[in-house]
């Protein structure tokens, strides 16, 4: 019996293995990673790790003793390039090294990769991405020798890295093609609050900016020297690109699984062949939020989703159908800002802003048809926690009363029938 093969020793892959053992699953588990690192956590790569606040060791998920004790075989540095799969879901994965990994059942937790910048000069040394530990190690190695940094892309990774690099004393320009930061992940008010904060912290934030090309250094043509933005040249010793991700669906496509912006799965994390599982950033799933429109699908890029969906997948493997529990939430630490997001704000028809400049707090509550659906909270964990638990309980927070930032949300939360 060859057991479960989990391809991708990511947050989702680790959680799937751990959850299976917690549920008492006894079968063999192999957790396969293509990177030459023990399974590690990614969120800090753009934050505490980049700022040298924490060490590499503290990113490691579990000790070797844990893996041994729980009989989870962890394999690193093996990149799967081909899978032979039978109709019953079993098969063999072939790695580029020639190693073979037979399985009774397969789980794909292969995540996503950084979208490449299709621009002239983007292949110059000194143009970096930030997705995995090797990216972060290369960035950290180059940071001491550089002063001028251009970050292309004003999403979470770009902003977090820009804030970290600013904290390290660099001259940072953040270039975003869209009209505001963070795209659709937060509302207008939050995006503007973030922009103003980071601008005040000394980051030059350029919105609606078009990057023409990346320019080699004049005296050393083999290195980056600047970025052409809206026709002018911004000097750069280092360019960091954070323009989104592409889900790694190639292996899934090669074995005939339905893919559409990720691997298409059902509410139980099962792919279109009815047996293979897909979890985390790579999975396109029915929107799990209570009250979401029928047929609405989402692909999350978050730790919370990787963890919760992995638990659902673990239940599937043990033969139980358990739907996704909990409200999606996200966080982004940006320099001195702690942004926490509860729920999904898309489709809101009203916002309530709670702003307390004296205490540096800022929250936006999102409502649809009078019911709260989400909140963006900056340095405001009380609001975040109050909204997250209200959403989980189906409770309401009346918008008119919530408008006074001095009123604790918990005190006006009402449990009422939907």
């Amino acid at each position: 019996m060859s057991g479960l093969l989990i391809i991708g020793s990511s947050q989702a892959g680790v959680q799937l293995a751990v959850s299976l053992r917690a549920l008492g699953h006894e079968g063999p588990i192999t957790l396969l990673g293509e990177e030459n690192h023990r399974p590690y956590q990614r969120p800090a790569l753009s934050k505490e790790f980049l700022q040298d606040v924490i060490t590499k060791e503290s990113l490691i998920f579990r000790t070797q003793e844990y893996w041994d004790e729980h009989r989870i075989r962890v394999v690193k540095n093996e990149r799967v390039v081909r899978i032979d799969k039978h109709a019953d879901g079993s098969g063999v994965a072939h790695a580029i090294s020639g190693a073979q990994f037979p399985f009774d059942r397969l789980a794909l937790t292969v995540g996503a990769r950084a979208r490449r910048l299709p621009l002239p000069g983007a292949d110059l040394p000194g143009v970096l991405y930030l997705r995995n530990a090797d990216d972060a190690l290369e960035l950290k190695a180059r940071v001491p020798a550089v002063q001028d940094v251009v970050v292309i892309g004003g999403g979470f990774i770009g902003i977090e890295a820009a804030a970290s690099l600013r904290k390290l004393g660099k001259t940072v320009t953040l270039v975003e093609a869209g009209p505001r930061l963070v795209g659709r992940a937060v509302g207008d008010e939050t995006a503007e609050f973030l922009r103003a904060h980071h601008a005040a912290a000394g980051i030059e934030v350029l919105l609606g900016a078009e990057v023409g090309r990346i320019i080699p250094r004049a005296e050393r043509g083999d290195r980056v020297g600047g970025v052409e933005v809206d026709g002018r040249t911004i000097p750069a010793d280092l360019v960091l690109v954070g323009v989104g991700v592409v889900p790694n669906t190639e292996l899934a496509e090669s074995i005939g699984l339905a893919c559409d912006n990720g691997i298409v799965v059902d509410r139980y994390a099962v792919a279109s062949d009815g047996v293979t599982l897909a979890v985390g950033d790579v999975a396109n799933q029915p929107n799990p939020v209570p009250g979401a429109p029928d047929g609405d699908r989402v692909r999350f890029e978050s730790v919370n989703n990787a963890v919760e969906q992995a638990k659902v997948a673990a239940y599937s493997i043990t033969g139980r159908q358990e739907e996704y529990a909990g409200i999606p939430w996200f966080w982004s630490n940006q320099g001195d800002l702690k942004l926490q997001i509860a729920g999904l704000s898309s489709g809101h028809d009203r916002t309530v802003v709670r702003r307390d400049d004296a205490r540096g707090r800022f929250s936006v509550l999102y409502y649809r048809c009078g019911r709260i659906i989400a909140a963006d909270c900056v340095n405001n964990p009380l609001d975040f926690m109050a909204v997250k638990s209200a959403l989980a309980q189906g409770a309401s927070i009346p918008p008119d009363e919530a408008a006074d930032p001095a009123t604790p949300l918990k005190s006006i939360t009402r449990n009422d029938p939907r």
Partner: protein
Amino acid sequence: MAQITYTDTTGDARTVTATVGDSVMETAVRNGVPGIVAECGGSLSCATCHVFVDDADFAGLPPMEDMEDEMLYGAAVDRGPTSRLSCQIKVVEEMDLHVTTPETQV
């Protein structure tokens, strides 16, 4: 040597040798101590590493900061007088800390 004893709500106790500089959360998670979830990996964003510190040990810990205090109000099990988020407790030399994990973290 530093050590942490984690006891769950049924009274099951497990003592783990800890590395100075790690947090009490990291020590639990890396060694697979159940009862501590720590979704956010210690960045003080999720309140899923809540512990009740033994009365005798609580006063000896450095005080918590406002952010931790506020996050604790959102923990899945209501906070008590000696509640802490274990990601914010650093292991120090000769530490012999006793904590109880709540019934649930989410």
